[in-house]
């Protein structure tokens, strides 16, 4: 099945710093989602981004489907950005369940 790898596994940032999280996937996909899991366990949708670039406030994401990777950029990080960031892709086309990476655990310190 499709493999999803995220890097780095852990990241510690000073408040105000910028960061880039990476997601590699082993097969072509027609859907990719980025999530933030907050310390209370809630998975929050960040982006639905099968290709191209999207921005939402301090966050932006770029997916290069032909090269099988996606990047999540966090600028001017805040302590509330702490948590685990997951990318997820479907194993095949159509409305299928998502395959998640192991996540990047981000800690933003004041």
């Amino acid at each position: 099945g499709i493999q999803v790898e995220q890097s780095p596994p852990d990241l510690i940032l000073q408040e105000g710093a910028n960061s880039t999280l990476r997601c590699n996937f082993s097969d072509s996909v027609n859907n990719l989602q980025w999530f933030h899991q907050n310390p209370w366990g809630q998975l929050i949708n960040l982006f639905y981004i099968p290709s191209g670039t999207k921005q939402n406030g301090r966050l932006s994401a770029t997916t290069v489907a032909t090269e099988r990777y996606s990047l999540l950029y966090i600028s001017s990080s805040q302590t509330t950005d702490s948590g685990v960031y997951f990318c997820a892709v479907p194993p095949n086309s159509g409305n299928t369940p998502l395959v998640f990476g192991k996540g990047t655990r981000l800690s933003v310190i004041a």
Partner: protein
Amino acid sequence: GAGVSQSPRYKVAKRGQDVALRCDPISGHVSLFWYQQALGQGPEFLTYFQNEAQLDKSGLPSDRFFAERPEGSVSTLKIQRTQQEDSAVYLCASSFPRGTQYFGPGTRLLVL
């Protein structure tokens, strides 16, 4: 509008006990997914419904796990004769067909 809701939020069960976890999807979402998330891991797929039809249950770890969605809305995940390895967070998600999946807050199950 209301998001995906799950109940109970926390459940402690004695080994061997049966449990039932409920998911209320976003109104109008025909697709419903159950995932299991172990500590420190990403969510892993359990089963998937489109309306009341269970289209894929390949992720259910054993025949002690059973899910239903009889009227195409609310879904229940049942675990019979719980074991300690069933301890995890159980997440439910819903979506329109081929759309973004939205997740509920999860049910944290602890089997003693």
